């Protein structure tokens, strides 16, 4: 294996800037590693090797011919993009048979901002179908394997991106998080992943799943690397009415590990019976580490945590059932020709969608249907208010909340595929942040007895991703969990 793929995102940028390496060399090294590992990991749905090499050559040309002070910040950096975000001219499958041949005519704003900053897109990564899943197993293109144990899932739905970063195919990648789809795979794969505040990063060009919950995030091997991608993506976009015009603070992270003055809340509701002991021990040790760095650790209560799961699995499917009504086989996507329009709709959707997507459309349609709306969807929206208030009240007294990302480390491929409720329970600690719209940052905090990564998350007040990055960066200055490399 070559050394270039061992470079972190920050080191890659430094090497590009100093002239120690060209974008073509970095891109070639990444493509070689992808080709070597894909048969075992299947992190990608579509590779765009030729376009990537051409973009790398262009980045190298720009670097040679431009004043160094005027160069875009990420010029020549190879990254991967979850196959739920549109990149003009590159097919966007969303992990679904429905969109197997769909080629978007425009680029998502989050990706566009990164392209303007100079990144080279290597390809589109595997995802649960329409981001509906916690293991990447619902992808119509087959599952991704966890780089730490290829018999296990990488988490989901952004499992392809997390596995690509963990296996050092790329130093950074984009994901999306509707109920934990960045944080849970970051945890399972031992990488760092940011789920931004709702409204912080534009959703334009992100294929919709649950529109009041969807967010675009990023993976890196460290908080510093994830912050580098996040800070470019963040900011107001007139093309997304839910994107907020809130200043993006500097994410410049230095070697300062002094966390004095910060208050970290520990919610008892996230340390429940059933949590794997190795996970609890690692997260509690990390909390002690924050205390050692000067943070004040205090108990907080988020009393409605146990209701987040039923609330999410009514609201997200309800929104999905409306969003996915657009797949009618007429304007784009899979189609089954029929004599009658209604038969065409039914056959197109029955054949084009996979089992998990159909299950959630059915569930959401039921929750919204006449006679059940108030009892299910309406009640879920009210309880969502209570969950949101829990966070508001906690953030009156603390700057961040520390918790496990998931009750267990990576489970085995196939372990939950026959029991949707058991799969949904994997999301119990990540759903609340989406329902409240607050940011969450997942990062490695240790390993279990089987050598699998344990992740922890920090959640913060709206638009305070900077606190989370600062804390995780300080933690990563004094620990080395994030530097471990899977033996592949």
């Amino acid at each position: 294996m070559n050394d270039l793929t061992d470079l972190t995102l920050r080191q890659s940028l430094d090497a590009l800037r100093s002239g120690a390496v060209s974008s073509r060399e970095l891109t070639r090294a990444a493509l070689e590693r992808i080709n070597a590992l894909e048969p075992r990991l299947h992190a990608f749905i579509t590779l765009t090797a030729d376009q990537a090499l051409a973009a790398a050559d262009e980045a190298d040309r720009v670097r040679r011919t431009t004043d160094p002070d005027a160069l875009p910040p990420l010029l020549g950096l190879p990254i991967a993009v979850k196959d739920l975000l549109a990149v003009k001219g590159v097919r966007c499958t969303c992990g679904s048979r429905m969109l197997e041949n769909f080629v978007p005519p425009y680029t998502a704003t989050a990706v566009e901002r990164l392209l303007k900053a100079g990144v080279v897109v290597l390809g589109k990564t595997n995802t649960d179908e329409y981001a509906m899943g916690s293991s990447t197993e619902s992808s119509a293109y087959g599952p991704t394997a966890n780089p730490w144990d290829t018999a296990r899932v990488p988490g989901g739905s952004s499992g392809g991106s997390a596995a690509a970063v963990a296996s050092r195919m790329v130093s950074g990648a984009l994901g999306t998080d509707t109920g934990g789809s960045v944080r849970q795979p970051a945890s399972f794969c031992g990488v760092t992943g940011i789920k931004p505040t709702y409204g912080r990063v534009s959703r334009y060009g992100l294929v919709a799943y649950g529109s009041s919950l969807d967010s675009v995030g990023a993976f890196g091997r460290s908080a510093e690397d994830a912050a580098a991608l996040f800070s470019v993506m963040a900011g107001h976009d007139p093309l997304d009415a839910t994107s907020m015009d809130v200043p993006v603070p500097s994410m410049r992270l230095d070697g300062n590990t002094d966390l004095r003055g910060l208050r970290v809340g520990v919610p008892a509701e996230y340390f429940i019976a059933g949590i794997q002991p190795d996970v609890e021990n690692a997260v509690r040790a990390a909390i002690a580490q924050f205390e050692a760095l000067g943070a004040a650790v205090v108990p907080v209560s988020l009393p409605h945590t146990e209701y987040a799961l039923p609330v999410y699995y009514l609201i997200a499917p309800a929104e999905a059932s409306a969003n996915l009504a657009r797949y009618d086989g007429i304007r784009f996507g899979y189609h089954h020709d029929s004599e009658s329009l209604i038969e065409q709709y039914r056959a197109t959707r029955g054949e084009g969608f996979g089992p998990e997507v159909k299950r959630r459309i059915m569930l959401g349609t039921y929750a919204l249907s006449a006679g059940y709306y108030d009892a299910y969807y309406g009640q879920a929206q009210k309880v969502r208010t209570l969950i949101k208030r829990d966070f508001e009240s906690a953030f009156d007294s603390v700057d961040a909340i520390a918790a496990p990302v998931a009750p267990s480390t990576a489970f085995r491929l196939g372990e939950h595929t026959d029991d949707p409720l058991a799969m949904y329970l994997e999301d119990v600690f990540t759903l609340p942040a989406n329902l409240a719209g607050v940011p969450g940052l997942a990062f490695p905090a240790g390993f279990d007895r089987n050598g699998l990564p344990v992740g922890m998350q920090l959640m913060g007040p709206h638009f305070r991703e900077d606190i989370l990055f600062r804390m995780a960066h300080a933690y990563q200055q004094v620990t080395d969990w994030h530097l471990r490399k899977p033996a592949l």
Partner: protein
Amino acid sequence: MSLTLAEVEHIAKLARLELSAEEKERYRQQLSAILEYAARLQSLDTSGIAPTSSVLPPRSVLRADEPQTSLTPAEVLANAPHSEDQQFRVPKVLE
């Protein structure tokens, strides 16, 4: 909370999903289990609690009504299985 097969068929009709007999029975069982789990929400008193449909502050988002460039008809139709004269072609809906 146990759904009947007729209820599953009604939902599938509303959602425009063609399901096999096997799928209907599987979803009947799985959706029943999920809805039973969700029934715990009913135990919470939410009288006087406003629903949350968005976590963002309520606001009106408008832009200046100025012409802008948009996708060309060829770009819009490029992914359509059937098109004709710059329009999407669908099966006949009126006799």
